């Protein structure tokens, strides 16, 4: 059967229906005032990034013109603004490249060929682009454009082709280009799957002022979601290793699910921006925390995705399968939707990150949710679902709804925790701990149940009274406006430093971090680990870390001709390859015959030479700077240049830094360094030493590697670690011994030095990052001091310096060339300030 003609939609008819998109001067002024307040809030709370603020200012300026243009010029203007936004955020070269690639893809959709031929050609071009994204083929443009190009086309091309195939509405190039290059997209790689028909159909189909006001309301709601997300992300999220009882588990489960607020907040922001240009799109999320069944959850969370799945997969599958019976068709079509959801999430991950995502948690999560939705659908198909247009729910219905909401919230939290866990074993270990400690924390259970019921009760009230009532008008105009303006003003005032500091240091220290989008302490630790290992935790869109990773080039600091390190037997596991030379994006990197990232030295210390053995991780080795640019090389060169003969004829600093080395590995590095007869050993600590040391011990135990240090062996024995244990359990067991581990390492180093007459020096070199990573620093300093090191605290070295100007990149917090210069200068100063303890009393002394 041929397609039935849809209602014809064109700008002229829209104009007649919706008052030509006109807005009164007073209405316009009201909108503009709210946009100004939004701008201040965006700036105050550093919503998204600097690129977003630029795009937002362009949006506001564009809105002011757009609102007064005749309707027929508005869509072309929106397109122009969207293209300008791309150039503004990505720069001219990247922006033009992205636009040209996009035009190519859109042009293929409209070639004068059969539909099948166009699809085949498109698949071929997409396959070539995918090969370039995966770096199997070279791409003559920067990797920076992939996430945005992927975000603009990966799903919208599917929707667009589907509508081209079935729709008889005339093709409008301006509308098609506006759809793909949609203004906010350039700043948001994670973008809702906007439906093309809806994008076209709902354009200025209501009073212009009302559309704009809804857009602003949603943006305010988006900001609130994002700030709530930050509260959860900074203050409530836990790692599995930090879960010790039912209370911790409840916090872990709930906070894990609530991290999704970032996605819902961002989507509200995006759609709100589109409203400013007349696109009256549906809600992207509808009170998803208040879902009362599995199907209800699926309908409320990421509504655009659900609609995309229904349109492109569910209905076509159902209509093809219904010859086998309606129930069979319903079951198979629903399962097909969940299969495609899983596959398309992996596909989305590929375009945003450039890697494939196939993990068991993903497969099981979508399978379980799919099966539950099928069962729920069959139940609803048989028994029906309660709906209402205007009638109030009965007391019994309300009570049932409350219990359902509370139960569903708990269940989704559990399911979500499984999805986001690093491994299935880790997830099971959470429940084991609760079982073990249940008796101790049993008092928390009634509290948790009460909290869930109260949440469900208020949710039940909101859901019962707040379901969309078709045909009902929105709340009174003035009331809605007052709520929005009041919310903006409260946010604005709360974000003023002199206001929140007025409430004391506790309140100030809570609010201050909420004003910027930094990585949480857990993600900061994950980022550190991510320099050296492939992080599984970054495979979900909830935390901010994936976004940082999406910008990181796949070959970031790759070293030509294989790695810089090689695997060796024994406790240390890896070392730098001797006599290695390679080039990186940041210059030549080479090692000497001893496997040090340094110039060549003799094994025997030359006479009248002050020799330092420098131990540390990648910051010391000089990750991200060329040979001769490390702070070690700069300091050595300056000492020889400016301190020559006072009192030593020569200074040598031997760089034993190895990327990824954890504190216990420095014991092995020290063994190697002692063979070079140093005068002093400089141990560089960069933060979070005790937890990293503990994690390393867990790693070697799991790998059954022998620990050659008795003090560390004793800790492992006390913590009762065994190789079969999952990582979270092992980390939990070893947590009480963090200080003991670090003490063993530091005392081991200091005592070996002192017994040989070597000066042990402990240097604290802060990481080049903001956010929470210093929580272990005071204890670390105390342990180092107690071990008898000469202390050099560089804690304030980056004070007053823009962190972005001295680190390698947003995704790599190692110091860059300028950072190394700063460190070298400060160490030179410290060296002279502490010369009495650092330099032996006579040249002949050791």
């Amino acid at each position, binding site marked *: 059967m041929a397609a*039935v003609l849809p209602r014809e939609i064109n700008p002229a008819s829209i104009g007649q229906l919706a008052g030509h998109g006109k807005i009164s001067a007073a209405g316009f002024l009201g909108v503009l005032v709210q946009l100004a307040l939004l701008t201040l809030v965006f700036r105050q709370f550093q919503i998204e990034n600097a690129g977003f603020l630029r795009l937002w200012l362009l949006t506001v300026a564009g809105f002011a013109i757009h609102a007064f243009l005749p309707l027929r010029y508005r869509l072309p203007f929106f397109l122009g603004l969207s293209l300008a936004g791309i150039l503004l955020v990505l720069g001219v070269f990247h922006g033009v490249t992205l636009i040209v690639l996009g035009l190519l893809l859109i042009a293929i959709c409209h070639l004068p060929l059969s539909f099948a031929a166009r699809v085949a050609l498109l698949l071929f071009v997409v396959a070539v682009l995918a090969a370039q994204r995966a770096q199997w083929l070279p791409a003559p443009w920067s990797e920076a454009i992939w996430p945005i190009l992927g975000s603009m086309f990966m799903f919208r091309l599917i929707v667009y082709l589907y509508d081209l195939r079935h729709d008889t509405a005339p093709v409008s190039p301006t509308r098609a280009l506006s759809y793909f290059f949609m203004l906010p997209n350039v700043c948001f790689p994670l973008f809702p799957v906007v439906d093309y028909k809806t994008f076209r159909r709902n354009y200025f189909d209501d009073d212009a002022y009302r559309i704009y006001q809804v857009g602003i309301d949603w943006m305010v709601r988006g900001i609130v979601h994002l700030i709530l997300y930050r509260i959860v992300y900074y203050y409530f999220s836990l790692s599995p290793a930090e879960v010790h009882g039912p209370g911790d588990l409840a916090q872990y489960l709930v906070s894990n699910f609530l991290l999704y607020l970032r996605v819902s907040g961002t989507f509200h922001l995006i759609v709100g921006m589109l409203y400013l240009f007349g696109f009256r799109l549906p809600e992207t999320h509808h009170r998803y925390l208040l879902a009362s069944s599995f199907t209800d959850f699926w309908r409320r969370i990421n509504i655009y995705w659900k609609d995309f799945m229904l349109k492109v997969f569910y*209905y*076509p599958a159902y209509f*093809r399968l219904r010859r086998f019976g*309606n129930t069979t068709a319903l079951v198979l079509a629903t399962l097909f939707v969940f299969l495609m959801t899983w596959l398309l999430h992996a596909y989305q991950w590929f375009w945003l990150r450039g890697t494939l995502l196939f993990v068991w948690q993903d497969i099981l999560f979508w399978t379980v949710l799919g099966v539950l939705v099928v069962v729920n659908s069959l139940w609803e198909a048989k028994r029906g679902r309660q*709906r209402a*247009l205007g*009638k109030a729910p009965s007391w019994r219905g309300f009570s049932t709804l409350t219990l359902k909401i509370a139960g569903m919230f708990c269940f989704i939290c559990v399911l979500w925790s499984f999805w986001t866990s690093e491994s299935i074993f880790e997830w099971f270990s959470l429940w084991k701990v609760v079982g073990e400690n249940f008796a101790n924390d049993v008092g928390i259970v009634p509290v948790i149940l009460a909290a869930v019921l109260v949440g469900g009760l208020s949710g039940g009230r909101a859901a019962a009274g707040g379901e969309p009532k078709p*045909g009902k008008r929105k709340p009174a105009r003035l009331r809605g406006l007052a709520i929005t303006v009041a919310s903006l003003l409260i946010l604005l005032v709360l974000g003023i430093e002199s206001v929140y500091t007025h409430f004391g240091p506790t309140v100030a220290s809570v609010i201050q971090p909420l004003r910027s989008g930094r990585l949480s302490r857990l993600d900061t630790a994950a980022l550190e680990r991510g320099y050296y290992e492939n992080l599984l935790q970054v495979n979900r869109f909830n935390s901010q870390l994936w976004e940082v990773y999406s910008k990181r080039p796949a070959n970031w600091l790759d070293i030509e001709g294989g790695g810089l390190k090689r695997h060796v037997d024994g406790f240390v596991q890896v070392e730098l390859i001797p006599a290695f030379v390679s080039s990186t994006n940041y210059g030549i990197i080479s090692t000497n015959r001893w496997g040090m990232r340094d110039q060549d030295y003799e094994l025997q210390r030359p006479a009248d030479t002050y020799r330092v053995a420098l131990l540390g991780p990648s910051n010391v080795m000089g990750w991200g700077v060329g040979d001769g640019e490390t702070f070690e090389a700069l300091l050595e060169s300056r000492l020889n240049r400016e301190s020559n003969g006072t009192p030593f004829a020569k200074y040598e600093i031997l760089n034993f830094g190895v990327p990824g080395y954890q504190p216990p590995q420095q014991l092995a590095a020290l063994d190697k360094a002692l063979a070079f007869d140093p005068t002093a050993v400089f141990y560089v600590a960069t933060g979070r030493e005790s937890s990293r040391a503990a994690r390393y011990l867990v790693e070697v135990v799991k790998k059954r590697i022998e620990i050659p240090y008795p003090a560390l062996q004793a800790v492992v024995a006390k913590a009762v670690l065994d190789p079969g244990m999952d990582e979270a359990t092992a980390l939990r067991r070893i947590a009480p011994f963090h200080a003991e581990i670090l003490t063993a390492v530091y005392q081991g180093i200091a005592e070996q030095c002192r017994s040989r007459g070597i000066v042990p020096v402990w240097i604290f070199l802060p990481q080049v990052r903001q956010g929470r990573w210093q929580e272990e620093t005071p204890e670390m300093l105390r342990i180092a001091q107690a071990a008898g090191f000469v202390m050099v605290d560089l804690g304030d070295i980056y004070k007053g310096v823009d962190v972005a100007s001295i680190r390698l990149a947003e995704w790599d917090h190692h110091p860059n060339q300028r950072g190394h210069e700063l460190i070298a200068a400060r160490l030179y100063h410290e060296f002279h300030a502490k010369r009495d303890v650092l330099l032996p009393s006579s040249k002949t002394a050791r």
Partner: protein
Amino acid sequence: MSDDINQAVKAFILSEFLPGEDPDELKDDTPLITGGVLDSIATLKLVLFIEERYGVTFEAHEVDPEHMDTTADIVRLVCAKRLRDPA
């Protein structure tokens, strides 16, 4: 004819999905899909009802808000189908 379809569709929706609801609340322009009255299962139930009653056949791409968001849309779609493919 269109009045008959409209009444039948409304009666079906009220009895199947909105039991106990005041019939006056369901108007010709009440949004059904975008308003949350018709979810995917309910929409398919309605499609089956219309197909059986009026001898028309729906296609997958027609099951969307553009064609089925209000009873007025549904009537328009069914009439167009009956005009094109008279039973």
